[in-house]
């Protein structure tokens, strides 16, 4: 699904050059649920931004769903973001002036779907997250957990093959966090590849694989231990 080979990302100012990622190598297979951990400033979010085509990288090769995205222009990158990738953010990133329905509709508008298609997808996505009855509410009228579920519905409405979640439970209490995690597991069980950045070790363990990033590099891929833990839990 995703293969990054020797990816480097350098942030430059007049005085300082910061290597956010250096010789970053990672392969994620279709259907995996990968958690990404690491200390603050290790490059997790940079990795996620590059994976989601939200940011460029300085060197290396990135193949997404069989397509080398290194040389794509803005239109092609936007199309891939729209059609193949769903985003879930720590701060939800809903558009405050749009109601829930219209928020979920945003990516579908950019895909050019018919009104009927959009309506069906929105209803389905909101049903999945259990917020069909709140379609006319504004984000500010919902709790944090509900807002994150709207964000998940927005990501799901586009039926993405890859879901990128950046600290999806970071702003939620433990009960809400658990609900969101269960929702993500449910989505994963339907075949969607998920990459989730998290600081929470417990959430990390619920993924099928954990990638640890340290100083802009993948320092550890403890897939085996993770699988054992999963088996033990089961």
């Amino acid at each position, binding site marked *: 699904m995703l293969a990054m080979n020797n990816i480097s990302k350098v942030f430059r100012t007049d005085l300082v050059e910061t290597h956010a990622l250096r010789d970053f190598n990672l392969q994620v297979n279709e259907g995996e649920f990968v958690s990404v951990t690491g200390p603050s400033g290790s490059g997790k*979010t940079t990795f996620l*931004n590059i994976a*989601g085509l*939200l*940011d460029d990288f300085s060197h290396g090769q990135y193949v997404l769903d069989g397509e080398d995205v290194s040389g794509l222009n*803005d*239109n092609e990158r*936007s*199309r891939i*973001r*729209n*059609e193949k990738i769903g*985003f879930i*953010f*720590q*701060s939800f*990133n*809903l*558009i405050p*002036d*749009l109601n829930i329905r219209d928020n979920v509709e*945003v*990516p579908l*508008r*950019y*895909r*050019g779907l018919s009104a009927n298609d959009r309506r069906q997808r929105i209803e389905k996505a909101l049903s999945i997250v259990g917020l069909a009855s709140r379609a006319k509410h504004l984000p500010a009228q919902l709790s944090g957990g509900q807002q994150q579920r709207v964000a998940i519905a*927005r990501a799901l409405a*586009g039926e993405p093959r890859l879901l990128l979640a*950046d600290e999806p439970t970071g702003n939620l209490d433990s009960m809400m966090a658990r609900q969101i995690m269960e929702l993500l597991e449910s989505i994963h069980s339907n075949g969607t590849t998920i990459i989730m950045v998290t600081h929470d070790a417990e959430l990390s363990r619920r993924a099928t694989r954990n990638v640890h990033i340290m100083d802009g590099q993948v320092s550890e891929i403890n897939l085996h231990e993770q699988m054992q833990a999963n088996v033990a839990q089961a």
Partner: protein
Amino acid sequence: MLLYEFKLAFKSLRKNPILSSLMIGAIALGIGVCMITVTMFYLMSGDPIPHKSDRLFAVQIDSWSKERPYTGSTNEMPFQLTWPDSTALMNRAPDFPQTAMFKSSMIIEQLQQGSELRREIVRITGRDFFSMFDLEFIYGTSWTEEMEQQAQQVVVLSETVNNELFNGQDSVGESIRVDDREYRVVGVVKDWNPVPNFYDLNNGSIEDPEAMYLPISLSEPLAMTTAGNTNCWKPSTGSGPQAVYQSECVWTQYWVELKNADEVAEYRNFLEGYYAEQQQLGRFERPQKVAVSNVREWLNINQVVENDNRVLVGLAFMFLSVCVFNTVGLMLTKFLGRSKETSIRRALGATRMTILRQHLVEVSSIGFVGGILGLFLTWAGLSVIKFATDIPEQLLHLDLQLMALALILALLATLAAGLYPSWHIGRISPARYLRT
């Protein structure tokens, strides 16, 4: 997608009404000021008689002093003719429709006892005047050649005066008193007040419509006096109104209708012959100089659209530019205020072009509303000008062409103002504001 973008634009305008109002207000003010000056410029520079402006010619003869040229006009010839020259042309010129004329001020009253006295502006002119300038008769016709020869005291009334004196009824055959003499009404014409009043620009290019028309054949016998400009290069001999008729002062306008270049050439030849004759008689002492100028040329010679007006239009557009620059700042503030929303939209699949288009649609909406408000300000401004001056109603007329120009100008101005902010917001990296 366009409808969606208009919906977003509407939401955005409603979300921050103060900022939106400032932007719309700035554009409206710029458009209003521009359109007021452009309207005045447009009307002043317009063709007052477009269907025959190339067939009506003002006549000039340089009858001025040998000592110095006439300095009041751009072609160094007097705008008007002397009475002897006007009568000579009327009597001897080739047989084309033509007339001498001048403006007078007279006291008018109905014959009935107790009728109110009123002073009105009157045009003294020839019978060809009405057909040459296409005045439209409501009742009757012009006076005839026979009436002129018999020195009949006849008059053609304007519609307004006919309404006031005869309640708008057919007054042909009725009599009125003008400067204590009785005149018989032979016709009533619709009010005629072209802007600019090209046929007599001596007292400005905008004047009130004239109340009535009297035969010029009566002017000298009845010693009618002009209410327009009289310019002299040497003193009159004698005194009283008759002295002016004999003088070398210029105070009559002269127009001729010529259908083609051959007729123009023929008429010019006649004028040159007349000039040479007068030189031989020792009257004209300057190098031969005559001119026949069509309406457009005549307006230019008279500098009806003065350089001041052009400068004013330039200043108005500079003011609009200042408004546009202010709007750029306001738009930049507004658009950058929703950088996060733009980042979200970019993350969800909006291309840079999509973001640019979304914002340009909003900008166009501001331009459209600003344009409509600007038109209202234009109307209000013209009304104030009308109220404060005696400019006639025609100048306040905003035609469809000018309205379309205002809206297009507003759209172009706001697009110019919004292009950079829209482009700038479209360049925002999708990742930049997503974590905040």
